[in-house]
């Protein structure tokens, strides 16, 4: 059975639209799953070492003069 020219055009357009639709869908699905797996957890732990913390340069003795008790 031969398809008419109009039917052929409809078929080709349908296939193209379906293909483009699935590609877009796949793209967003992939992007979503990517953003899920790339949680900031990696950045959070990137520079984590078990070193000690930095000291401060302000002494409590220097700031106590105007001590005010909060309500």
């Amino acid at each position, binding site marked *: 059975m031969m398809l008419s020219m109009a039917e052929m055009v409809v078929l080709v357009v349908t296939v193209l639209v379906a293909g483009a639709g699935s590609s877009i869908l796949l793209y967003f699905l992939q992007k979503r799953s990517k953003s899920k797996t790339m949680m900031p957890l990696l950045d959070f732990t990137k520079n984590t070492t078990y070193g000690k913390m930095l000291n401060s340069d*302000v002494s*409590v003795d220097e*700031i106590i003069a*105007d*001590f005010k008790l909060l309500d």
Partner: protein
Amino acid sequence: MKKETYEILWKDGIKAKAEQIVNDNAGKVVFDSEAKERIYKEYSKLRDYTKISFMRNPDGLLDRHKVCACLIIAIVKSKPLVYEDNDDNFGMKGIFNENLAMTVGLSLLYNFIISSDQNNQKWLKNGFSYPNTIRDATYQELLCLMLYYDIKNNQYSILALSNILFMIEAYTKQCNIENGE
């Protein structure tokens, strides 16, 4: 912390707030002025432990949040407020020592923040801000409960409390700067 510094903290902070709590709760709680030395010794012990355990230079200074955390824990552990009724079976008691400790600790933090930059008064002029809670206890009350149970069970963490103090400071700044202060 020099003894002279502690004298100011004791007189204008710990003693002043403790007397206010005693006046507001007459017959329930009394103030033990002998706690003065206990608090200082406990604070010194906690401060030295923190420096040795967590700081790169154990001879250097602690940051403001750790200083305040050590002071808060020292006050709660030293129990300057003593319940007049020793019967422990009548249910919940006031968390007076924890309230005292948080007030003094946050007052000291306030002082540290203002001293570092006078412009900080803009966002700190109304004191600290706390997040709303869903149930009937305020965030401050929940903090006091946390202190009560953690210290009772000897499970407190200076770093965790220090982190909470940092978050309160950051939250206050964020809330007030967003409101255009």
